[in-house]
């Protein structure tokens, strides 16, 4: 998981069941990825139509070479990292012993003048 994708400040709980917080975020990531894939497919279709090159059969029978296999696997691993980033966030908070009470304390301290 990419540790640069962690946000300092306890992530809020939105639902009674914490799993629902994971799920809603994961659905959003899936929606994002599907949308990106549709855009890429659209690009492919438009370019193919212009050049009259790629056919559905060719796409069906395409066998990826080693470099492509590696590229696709790397992309999928990044995708999975995004999908589960909300759990990575929670894990980082546990490691840093971060808490909702510290979050609340920061808000109070900034408002009351305890923090410069």
């Amino acid at each position, binding site marked *: 998981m*990419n540790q*640069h*994708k962690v946000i300092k400040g306890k992530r809020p709980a939105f639902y009674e069941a914490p799993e629902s917080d994971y799920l*809603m975020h994961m659905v959003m*990531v899936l929606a994002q990825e599907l949308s990106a894939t549709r855009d890429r497919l659209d690009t492919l279709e438009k370019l193919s139509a212009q050049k009259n090159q790629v056919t559905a059969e060719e796409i069906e029978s395409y066998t990826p070479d080693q470099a492509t296999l590696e590229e696709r696997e790397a*992309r999928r691993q990044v995708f999975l990292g995004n999908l589960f980033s909300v759990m990575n966030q929670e894990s980082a908070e546990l490691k840093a012993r971060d808490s909702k009470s510290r979050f609340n304390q920061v808000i109070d301290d*900034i*408002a009351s003048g305890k923090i410069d």
Partner: protein
Amino acid sequence: MTSSLLNTFQQNEHPMLVVGDADDRARQEFVKSLKTYIQQDILPLVQNAYQTRATAKFNKTHEHDPKDYREAREAFADDPIFKAYLSINRSSQELQWFSVIDGIEGEIAELEKKAEAVPKAGGTLKIDEGFVVPKYISELDIHCMPGGYCGPSDVSKLYTGALYDRGVYIYALGYMGPNNDDMGRSVCNYISRNYPDFKPTSILDMGCTVGHSTLPYAELFPESEVHAIDVSEACVTYGHYRAEGLGLPVHFKLANAEKTDYPDESFDLIVSHILLHETSKNAMPKIFKECMRLLKPGGIMIHADLPPFDDMDPYTQLILDNETWYNNEPFWTAMRNTDQIETAVEAGFKREDIKFDTAPMAIMELIGQSESYSEDMAQELTDREFTAGEYAPGGGWEVLIAQKAV
């Protein structure tokens, strides 16, 4: 849909901008679409749930409607539509930054080279050793931007500015114009139109981040020397190269607006854009006092930021207060509850020389800068009413203005 037009705003390219590969861009476009949908289509559902079942439920136990944002939250906290809205909105913010990070991590080495090759425009960058970042900036990652304004310690100094530059464009849904500069441009126009005889020769932008709002001053007041300070080394460093790349001379410096080392009476004009709500109860009065010290007699300070809560209904207050709790904006609500006029009086400005006003959005004047900023879209934007939870204000930016006595 409150809008009949599709938002296809696109950010202008410049030598330091990182947008990533085709998939990164598609993911970023998705976030822009998602945020647009949340603001235009989901928010009305939220408001309806509040006005119907939440208010009715609250009335049963309290025998009156919620009176302020605290009561509104009590009434609404358990509502499933409200909870879904909050969690989707939070995820959209996370996806926004993460989709930009992927592009930056792929291109950071190239960005370093681009910075070295950027043509010189006459600006400077000053970083003092031993600078201490205020805790109100470092305790939470503001806007949920990973690493915060100052960025993680194990990355290039250009990383966080690049993340902010692209991320903010998506966050603002392009409403800040193709160069993310609408706030600065709007305040420049406001000054030119309301103070036609005021010709500043020295300008300071406080809390400049990467200089989005700073550059219009260099463009529209070419006779003036433009200085810009921020507490983030990463932001001013990226801002310097961005400004040079865009051909505008700005003097960037790592400095805290509470206490700078510029001599007394250095500037004709001191501005800030969405800075004050990122500070603290203690810092804001110090910043106003520093403005008083740094202004020449007759000089003007203008802070473009958030209107006070006073005149807003409890629901609007609540939606805005969400930024504090769900978007890591620690001073957002407390700042709105602070009397800014009184703070300026205490800093030495005369009460009759201080006022709030609205600086009309300059976006109409950006038409033609790029294909996606069509006349219809810009007109629709300027015609909007202010709606809590949407990014851009209706029509204009709130400004606090104070002139130093001659």
